[in-house]
């Protein structure tokens, strides 16, 4: 019995059935991390002691036949821009090199309540996916902080969900682009993705943008229902080979798949860059070297303290974002850029959502040219999207359409597994 070869779902089951202890699981994964880390460089901080202590507590609960949570004993890696109480959270930046949050992000808190075990903090931006891919943790929390346009998961052979904006509380996620930042699960398979999302989703009074929709949906009970009768749209001109085989599978399983002319505009990219930069410029203002984080050593005034700390503490990309964001918000350019971008955003959202009046899901490629526009549109509209490793594609759903996405993705996952077996 090797937990390294199991899904999170199975690990929990075996711990409860006392096939092995939570402590054994953590030890095994830590060994794996020590072995692989020199190659991957995925972790910024490891939580060895805390993880072992928590594992012991969970083992004790199990020995006393107490109820345990849905992630009992499962090691979880957390991206380093998500706050963890008492554990260094650096955003992989010099600016926050010594920042120790005094609180847990709501998502982290909920995972802990589900008896998940935080094993370490991952580097930015693609490393949450990398550590899962390298088997250093079965599950990770990622946040595409509106910054990276890449789709790390699809390159790393893992499943990654960007949930509907507002479904998972942002409280404790160090903000970059507030209206687009989302925390989502990364896992080796669909069901692990589901249990992680189920554990951390839902209303949070500490995040006003999470309150709008207070569902606590159970995706797992319907995930095996299949996709018969589902209407799936594929944007015109998307002829990637992987997509084609995927379309065939969907059809075989009883879904209807149609080509549609998808409302895509290159301006989505501009709107995305303008809004995300504006929000980032404002959000990053608090890193002034006064209360926490990096402080320049040499200064003669408060202004100089702030200027130097920011000049020395931020990296080049962030500085560019701040400069752009400051410009588009300045009173002279506000209407020409920020305001226009917001109008465009509303328009894109309308068009996007109209597609979902006629279709349950949209299937789109991850890598080709149009990919960036899709990604920007997903950011701007806040709809959920799941990246899948096997088909280099992405399933996009309507707001709060995670249930449909999971059904389709799971069906595909099972089908491809079968297929692989047959081929073997």
């Amino acid at each position, binding site marked *: 019995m090797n937990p390294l070869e199991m899904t999170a779902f199975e690990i929990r089951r075996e711990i409860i059935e006392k096939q092995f202890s939570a402590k054994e699981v953590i030890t095994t994964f830590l060994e794996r991390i020590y072995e692989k880390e020199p190659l991957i460089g995925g972790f910024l901080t490891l939580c060895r002691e805390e993880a072992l202590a928590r594992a012991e507590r969970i083992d004790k609960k199990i020995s006393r036949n107490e109820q345990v949570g849905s992630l009992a004993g499962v090691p979880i890696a957390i991206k380093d821009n*998500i*706050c963890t109480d008492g554990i260094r*959270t650096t*955003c992989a930046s010099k600016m*926050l090199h010594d*920042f120790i*949050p*005094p*609180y847990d*992000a709501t998502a982290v808190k909920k995972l802990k309540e589900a008896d998940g075990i935080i094993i370490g903090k991952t580097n930015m931006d693609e490393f949450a996916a990398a550590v899962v891919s390298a088997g250093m943790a079965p599950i990770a929390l990622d946040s595409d902080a509106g910054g990276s346009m890449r789709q790390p998961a699809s390159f790393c052979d893992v499943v990654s969900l960007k949930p509907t904006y507002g479904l998972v509380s*942002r*409280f*404790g*996620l*160090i*903000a970059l682009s*507030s*209206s687009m930042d989302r925390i989502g699960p990364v896992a080796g398979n669909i069901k692990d993705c589901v249990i992680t999302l189920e554990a951390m989703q839902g209303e949070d*009074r*500490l*995040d*006003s*943008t999470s*309150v*709008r929709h207070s569902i606590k949906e159970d995706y797992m009970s319907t995930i095996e229902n299949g996709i018969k009768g589902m209407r799936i749209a594929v944007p015109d001109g998307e002829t990637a080979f992987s997509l084609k085989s995927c379309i065939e599978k969907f059809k075989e399983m009883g879904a209807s798949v149609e080509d549609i002319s998808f409302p895509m505009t290159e301006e989505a990219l501009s709107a995305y860059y303008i809004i995300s930069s*504006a*929000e980032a*410029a*404002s959000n990053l*203002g*608090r*890193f*002034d070297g*006064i*209360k*926490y984080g990096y402080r320049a050593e040499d200064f003669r005034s*408060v*202004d100089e303290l*702030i200027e130097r700390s920011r000049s020395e503490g931020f990296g080049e990309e962030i500085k560019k974002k701040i400069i752009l964001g*400051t410009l588009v*918000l*300045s*009173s*002279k350019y*506000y209407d020409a850029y*920020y305001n226009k971008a917001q109008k465009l955003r509303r328009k894109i959202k309308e068009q996007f959502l109209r597609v979902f009046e006629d279709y349950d899901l949209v299937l789109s490629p991850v890598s080709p040219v149009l990919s960036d526009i899709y990604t920007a549109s997903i950011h701007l509209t806040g709809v959920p999207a799941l990246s899948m490793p096997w088909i280099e594609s992405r399933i996009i759903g309507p707001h709060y359409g995670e249930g449909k996405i999971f059904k389709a993705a799971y069906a595909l996952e099972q089908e491809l597994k079968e297929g692989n077996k047959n081929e073997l």
Partner: protein
Amino acid sequence: MSFETVIGLEIHAELDTKSKLFCSCPTEFGANPNENTCPICLGIPGTLPALNAKAVTLVVKAGLILNCEINKESHMDRKNYFYPDLPKAYQITQYYTPVCKGGYVDIEAAGVSRRIRLNRIHMEEDAGKLIHLEADGVSLIDYNRAGIPLIEIVTEPDLRSPEEAVAFLIALKSMLEYGEISDCRMEQGSLRCDANISLRKKGQNALNTRVELKNLNSFKELKKALEYEEKRQKKLYTLKEEDKIVQETRRWEAVKEETIPMRSKEDADDYRYFPDPDLGPIIINDTLIREIKKNLPEMPVIRKKRFRELYGLKNKDIDIIVGYKALSEYYEALVSCGAEPKVGAKWILGSILKLLNEKGLKAEQIPIPPEELGKLIEIIEEGKISITAGQEVFSEMFRTGKDAENIIKEKGLSQISNRLELERIINSVLSNNPQSLSDYAAGKKQAAVFLMGQIMKASKGRANPQLANEILDERLKKGLL
């Protein structure tokens, strides 16, 4: 040439909520530095604001009291600038859509009634406070105030004199107090006022360059600063040096009694306002407005009218009593305990205000419960103790919180109206003052006044003055002993 002064005010009032605008930290004044803070109001990375619903209710209430139009949907915006007292490097305020627009306050200054229009009322959070330790060369930051809910009330440039500005602020303050929107303590900074002032030729419609005045911490300072600035600008116009009047912020220096430039318009930050993506729209529906309207307290104008009609008090007295909400409530409680309205008013305007001023207390801090003062007044009215003794009892009640009857008993202050007892005291006074007796016999009638004084002294002020006077008179007329 005759000039007209044009003044507009911007008033910040701290909302009377228990917790801050975006977190659950307490708002109470006087805590140790940084005691009332949490990760949210300190702007610790990852934290988010969640709007205090009570604050929204209070802004709407302020809007209804001040005759504003309530925006059914408004938003919070970010005002971005760097300053060490601003934890997030932006203040959450309302720039594009405030909760309230328009509105007015009716005022009376120098016998003239005027309607002063408001431009808007919006809601925002306060910043922290910097404390500079010059000697140590360091600055400390106290974030207790960071995130305290404020409203900013902005008037149109409708005020025409420093007197009107003061009258407006007094009227506004009392309305906010009556509405329980803010406790309006200027000395604690829970009510702050900035003023914009410009001059123009009488009859001219366009506005000239205005100057913004800051650091006006009391009615007196507001008036003085405006008068100073009015004079300064008038002089520059008269000397044809009006180009020296520039759009700038000037700080009132109370000690030097002058305004000095703080920053010019060119130095002003570009605040890069934009809607805060962390907070959704503030929706105010008719049900909430109806609910608030239904529970609006009596406003000062109405209370004044009622006091005039019900208690027959003079306008001057009403203005003082109704001017402080707590005082007017104390007064009504006193009257309902049975005090005759005019007698009650006399006590409030006299003894109570005197002692409050002496001790530096607020009207809500009167240490004597109204029913206790009512009892004292009754005792005096019944002639059980003299008015002088009554004053002494009152001071003692104020100081110790004991009730009147106990103090009278302890101090033996009850009035002596027993004839035999009085005669005994008078006999002894007369036998001790033979000289006065011979003076009286010699026709010096004022000797009687001296003797009366001695009787009061000997009785420790307890002698019933009327009866004592009667006995003394008899004795003197009877040919003395």
